[in-house]
């Protein structure tokens, strides 16, 4: 845990070397369920980037300016969940009201995000690693982009594999996990560059 790590470094580390999905396994449920096509993967990915960046900022402020002074840090799980759920709800209403086009693209994905463990995971990691405000926001944005990168790549691979003959018991989640393993293997190639832990 180096405190001198600049926000810029954390941003790139969260995308490549410490990809939130392929090294921390966060957000697997929706990753397995939605990654059948590039189009829907991209939609969900964009929604995740947006929500993750904003909630990591919000959660940072709530944690350091409300929970720590009041000595209520043990309640952070409940508070984070409520912040995330409320934020997602508000975003959904705002988008529906002001941008019908965006609502058509992202609409069905937004409620899914509340239960995406990557969002809560980012908030918890940021507390454990003692990030500053700018570091937290960079980590949230990088994490979201990294997650999107992984799910879009997976969507592309699965689209290509539609005609492939996969052993019956391995169909669906089984083969997706193994492909994810291969992707993780490829991402290990980045690890030498920067390290955050």
């Amino acid at each position, binding site marked *: 845990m180096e405190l001198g790590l600049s926000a810029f470094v954390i941003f790139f580390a969260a995308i490549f070397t410490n990809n939130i999905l*392929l*090294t*921390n*396994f*966060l*957000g*697997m*449920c929706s990753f*397995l*369920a939605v990654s*059948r096509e590039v189009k829907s993967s991209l939609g969900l990915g964009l929604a995740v980037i947006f929500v993750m960046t904003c909630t990591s900022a919000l959660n940072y402020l709530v944690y350091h300016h409300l929970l720590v002074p009041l000595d209520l840090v*043990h*309640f*952070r*799980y*409940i508070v984070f*969940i409520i912040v995330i*759920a409320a934020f997602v709800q508000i975003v959904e209403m705002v988008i529906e009201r002001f941008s019908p086009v965006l609502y058509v693209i992202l609409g069905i994905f937004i409620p899914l995000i509340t*239960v*995406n*463990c990557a969002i*809560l*995971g980012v908030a*918890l*990691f940021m507390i*454990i690693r003692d990030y500053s405000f700018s570091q937290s926001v960079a980590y949230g944005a990088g994490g979201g982009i990294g997650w999107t990168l992984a799910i879009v790549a997976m969507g592309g691979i699965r689209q290509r594999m539609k005609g492939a003959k996969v*052993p019956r*018991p*391995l*169909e*669906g*989640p*089984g*083969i*997706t*996990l*193994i492909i*994810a*393993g*291969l992707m*993780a*293997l490829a*991402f*290990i190639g980045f690890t030498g560059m920067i390290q955050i832990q």
Partner: protein
Amino acid sequence: MAKSKSMAIFVSGLWKENPVFRQILGICSALAVTNLMMNTLIMGLSLIFVTAMSNLTVSALRSITPVRIRMMVQTLIIASYVIIVDILLKAHLPDISEALGPYVGLIITNCIIMGRCEAFARHNTPWPSLLDGVASGCGYAFVLLTVAFFRELLGFGTVFGVRLMPGGWTNWTIMVMAPGAFFMLGGFIWVARSFGPRDGEKPEGAR
């Protein structure tokens, strides 16, 4: 009669409707904590506790919970039990608490628990709900321990920290890193789905 029903609930949670390899729920932590048997055991026990207790509570409160806000109520119940587990681990097993890191907190978003509350506890009396929670939790712990057994054995040559492999064994470092987790769980799902009932299974197993 009552006994055979309890038995049926147990079997379905453990194998027929196993949350991990049948319903593909709770994958995040199944991948993240399974590099050491000890961590996995603690995680499994925590999850059994949280699932059982939240099922019990949701079921006990089912007649007075307004339907429209039930998700929020369930989340709060689950989160309260997770906080208890977190505090207990920090106090008594600080090393493991540190190793598990954020994944204890992430039990809240583990879809197994919410799924059981929604699907079972909401419509059943407290006792079967408790049993159902324990069964689902055990099903989860069983898969995790199996995966962890192979990962630790191949990756470190040990089981629960006790050396099992002969002296000349070269550790498969990849097994304790991220890709090993994916391969192992994928392989486990493959083997598990090759046995057992096929009927009622959709061509695309994932939800």
